């Protein structure tokens, strides 16, 4: 159905030129799910745009985008209008942004139904509701009247899928449908696409930067690197025995809940200005030889639709390198650097009473040399916890002390004793301050002399493996990875007692993420300070945390040594999280499946998870759950002892 042949797109703008795609060829058949993976900027979205004939202005495209025999690139306006939606429909990368903010989602869906399925009036409303229901939206009649901003991220993504499906396309394109969603949701959303291919016989092109997460639902994968296809093949094959060094690097960069270590590949993806005459991966490739650097490898066909563009295909199956942890650091009890006691945080609404209860009684303790992992779904209060520790929000009850000092009563210098690394690497650097200025900020507060400041900034920079030349740059001139290194350098430069990492890698590309994780693992291992590492991605925590706490709607639901919690989860919520985390190689079906999305309203009484937990009883609904010791870890669920049995039952 879709048959892209030798598609090259060069975008010409005054003063710069980008070869977004170079000689890309692949095809999608009806009923087939094809994954398109690669790092940010690899050209994935460009492929999607080419398929619907919406290349950005200034594009020069060659080659052919065949669709049911016609060439999309050369369609006239009328043909394009027909092709878009009915032929190929995209689910956009950022569903919230892709929904028109001033029109109800129902109207938007009906617009599609009317246009492409010729429906009218009540009939359209009816099928809109049906479509909503079929993508898993509860209470569709009411949701039809919602505006996009009233939807949660997961809900918006579902609406987006229903919009695309509403066009009844032959080819459904999903551009990063799961980025930014929680693990539990990701799995569910991906299943939707598989479903579309299987039941409606649609072709599906699934675009993602994260191979691991989409691998499960794809029939075939296409790996893009710098606008070129480096490897294509059946999903299982490419995942288990990737032949291209880049595919292998990509896979190894993904942290693994099983405890597999990330192996970082140095360097970043090049921005090409013209179709390459060499292997674009060569500079980062451990196997590269001279031929790689001078000649572009042809795409060679291997067995069963497997093709590859590499002079040095690798053959060994990708083995999981298990981390040998240096446990000594954890056992060596240092002084206490952080103590949080029964902290509550309420965000007050601007008018009247009420507010949002973001943290509900959290207690923590952390010593130097220790690393505490904090995990939980989006919105569970992780960032609030970080801000609380940093003194950026005031606890409405309870106490927080850093290095023995109550955070509320700290002087300017004492405030620098705790440092934070932020989620958004570029956004956390002041746009009009140079890198040197940003890094030196904590030193300025500590009244360090100018000369001393420069020296220490350089030292911190050196540790981040960055060059001095970067010091005079401004944040917008940095890549995400560089910016995050600067952020870490800034946290380190004042030799603080405590460093809080708030999802430091979630905004980064897979391979860059691996690099940063290595740096962080190194920093966290320092005995001089304690670290708190916050992540929604369980796997990243496993690599180097000593202990881990699991947050759910502002409460700690489980806590314990990292291996214990990961290998023997007690709380149903932890189990669900771990179960839905994608794993390379083995597909691990979740043993606990949560119903519904995270909803703040659920936190009212009793166990917060009650509304979503498959094992819920009346006791759960009425009784507040507190942390109880179960083996080495503690969990806030009274049914823990019964769970293995219950899970076994639901299995059969």
């Amino acid at each position, binding site marked *: 159905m879709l048959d892209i042949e030798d598609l090259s797109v060069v975008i010409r703008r005054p003063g710069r030129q980008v070869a977004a795609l170079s000689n890309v060829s692949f095809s999608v058949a009806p009923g087939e799910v094809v994954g398109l993976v690669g790092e940010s900027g690899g050209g994935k979205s460009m492929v999607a745009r080419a398929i619907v004939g919406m290349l950005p202005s200034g594009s020069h495209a060659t080659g052919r985008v065949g669709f049911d025999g016609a060439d999309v690139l050369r369609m006239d306006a009328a043909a394009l209008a027909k092709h878009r939606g009915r032929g190929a429909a995209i689910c956009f990368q950022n569903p919230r942004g892709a929904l*028109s903010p*001033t029109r109800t989602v129902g109207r938007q869906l009906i617009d599609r139904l009317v246009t492409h399925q010729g429906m009218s009036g009540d009939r359209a409303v009816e099928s809109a509701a049906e479509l909503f229901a079929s993508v898993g939206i509860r209470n569709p009649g009411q949701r039809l009247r919602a505006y996009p901003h009233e939807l949660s991220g997961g809900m918006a993504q579902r609406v987006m899928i229903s919009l695309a499906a509403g066009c009844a396309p032959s080819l459904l394109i999903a551009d990063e449908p799961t980025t930014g969603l929680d693990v539990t949701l990701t799995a569910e959303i991906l299943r939707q696409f598989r479903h579309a291919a299987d039941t409606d016989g649609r072709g599906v092109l699934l675009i993602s930067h994260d191979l691991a997460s989409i691998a499960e639902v794809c029939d075939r994968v296409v790996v893009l690197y710098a606008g070129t296809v480096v490897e294509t093949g059946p999903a299982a094959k490419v995942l288990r025995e990737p032949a291209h060094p880049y595919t292998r690097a990509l896979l190894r960069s993904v942290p693994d809940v099983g405890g597999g270590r990330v192996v970082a590949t140095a360097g970043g993806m090049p921005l090409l200005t013209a179709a390459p005459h060499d292997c674009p991966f060569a500079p980062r490739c451990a196997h590269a030889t001279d031929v790689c650097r001078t000649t572009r490898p042809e795409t060679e066909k291997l067995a069963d639709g497997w093709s590859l563009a590499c002079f040095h295909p690798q053959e060994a199956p990708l083995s999981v390198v298990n981390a040998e942890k240096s446990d000594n650091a954890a056992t060596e009890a240092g002084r206490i650097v952080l103590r949080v006691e029964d902290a509550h945080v309420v965000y007050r609404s601007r008018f009247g009473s009420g507010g949002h209860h973001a943290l509900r009684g959290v207690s923590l303790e952390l010593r130097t040399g220790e690393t505490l992992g904090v995990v939980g779904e989006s919105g569970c209060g992780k960032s609030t916890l970080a801000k609380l520790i940093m003194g950026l929000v005031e606890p409405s009850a309870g106490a927080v002390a850093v290095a023995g000092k109550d955070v509320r009563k700290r002087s300017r210098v004492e405030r620098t004793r705790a440092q934070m690394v932020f989620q958004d690497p570029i956004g956390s650097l002041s746009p009009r301050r140079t890198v040197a200025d940003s890094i030196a900020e904590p030193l300025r507060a500590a009244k360090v002399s100018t000369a001393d400041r420069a020296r220490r900034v350089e030292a911190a920079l050196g540790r981040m493996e960055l060059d001095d030349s970067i010091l005079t740059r401004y944040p917008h001139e940095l890549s995400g990875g560089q910016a995050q290194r600067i952020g870490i350098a800034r946290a380190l430069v004042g030799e603080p007692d405590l460093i809080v990492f708030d999802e430091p890698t979630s905004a980064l590309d897979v391979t860059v993420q691996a690099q940063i994780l290595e740096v962080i693992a190194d920093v966290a291992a320092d005995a001089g300070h304690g670290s708190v590492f916050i992540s929604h991605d369980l796997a990243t925590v496993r690599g180097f945390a000593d202990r881990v706490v699991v947050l759910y709607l502002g409460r700690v639901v489980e806590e314990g040594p990292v291996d214990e919690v990961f290998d023997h989860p007690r709380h149903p919520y932890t189990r669900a999280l771990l179960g839905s985390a994608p794993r390379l190689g083995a597909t691990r079906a979740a043993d606990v499946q949560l119903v519904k999305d995270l909803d703040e309203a659920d936190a009212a009484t009793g166990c917060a998870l009650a509304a979503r937990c498959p094992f819920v009883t009346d006791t759960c609904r009425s009784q507040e759950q507190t942390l109880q010791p179960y083996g080495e870890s503690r969990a806030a669920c009274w049914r823990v002892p019964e769970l293995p049995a219950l899970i076994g039952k639901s299995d059969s």
Partner: protein
Amino acid sequence: MRILRFVGRRLLQLIPVLLGVVVLTFLLVRVLPGDPIRSILGPNATEADAAAARARFGLDQPLWKQFLDYLGGLFTGNFGTSIQSGSPVSGEMALRLGPTLELVVIAVAIAVVLAIWLGIWSARRADRLGDHTVRIFALFGNSIPEFWLGLVLILVGYAALGWFPAPSGRVDPDTNLTPLTGADLVDAVLTGNGPAMASAAAHLVLPVLTLVIGVLAPLLRSVRASALEVLHSEAYAAAAAHGLPERTLLRGYLRRATLVRLPSLAALVFGTAIGSTVLVEYVYSWQGFGQWALRGLLYRDYPVVQASVLIIALCYVLIFLIADVVHAVLDPRVRI
């Protein structure tokens, strides 16, 4: 319901602002040099005459007493008595406010409609000749001083072409229009006076045109910019990528999304337009609010100045309130 609560809350917020305006104006007119009493007395008046006149207007009272009296009057809708004319300010003001509001409302309404239409047209043809031409022309209009433009329009429209009535009023008195609101076109419509309607409309053309030309550019720029933003937005691209027809795109996805930011700007423009009518009123012999307020100020007619500033401020804040409500209606994201 929520809207009402919002409006209620905002109205409460207006109280300190209006009170501030009241206090500030009250003090300001009194610290200004110039004696309102002297300007109504002949040159032969003695100090005793002046004192009598001062007493007549309560200006012999201590300042705090004057202020309390004024404030008390405001609560009962009594704006005091004009020193110049000796008649109640509220009556005079009612006669003057109508014509000016009529002028400004019509002009801003036309400018807004024109801006929406041209702005979207222009954005859809972004960076083509038509777009550039429209924008440059709007900028030109925006750069001409209103009084100058007014004169040119009179020279062309009245003196040279004779298409429009003489710039000496708002309606032909021969049409025997019964004034109700002071806004002649409205009055003509209300009383069903056909000739007056035609005459009032003819008198409105040039002053309205002057104002429209003056305020079009910022509105146009805003509409065009937000239309472009919408056109470049993912949301619009998504709708287009799903092959929705032009009409649906324009109506459902472009227009309303474009307009969300307009109300507050329109309010601002309305505010400045009220301010600048004083010039247009002069040029077109439009005996409106601005001329009245200006004259009051020149003769230090305290009650007139106080009332006119308060009313302008009130119009201003109310218009902003309306803009916020319209914004809330247009943009579902606004939480009120």
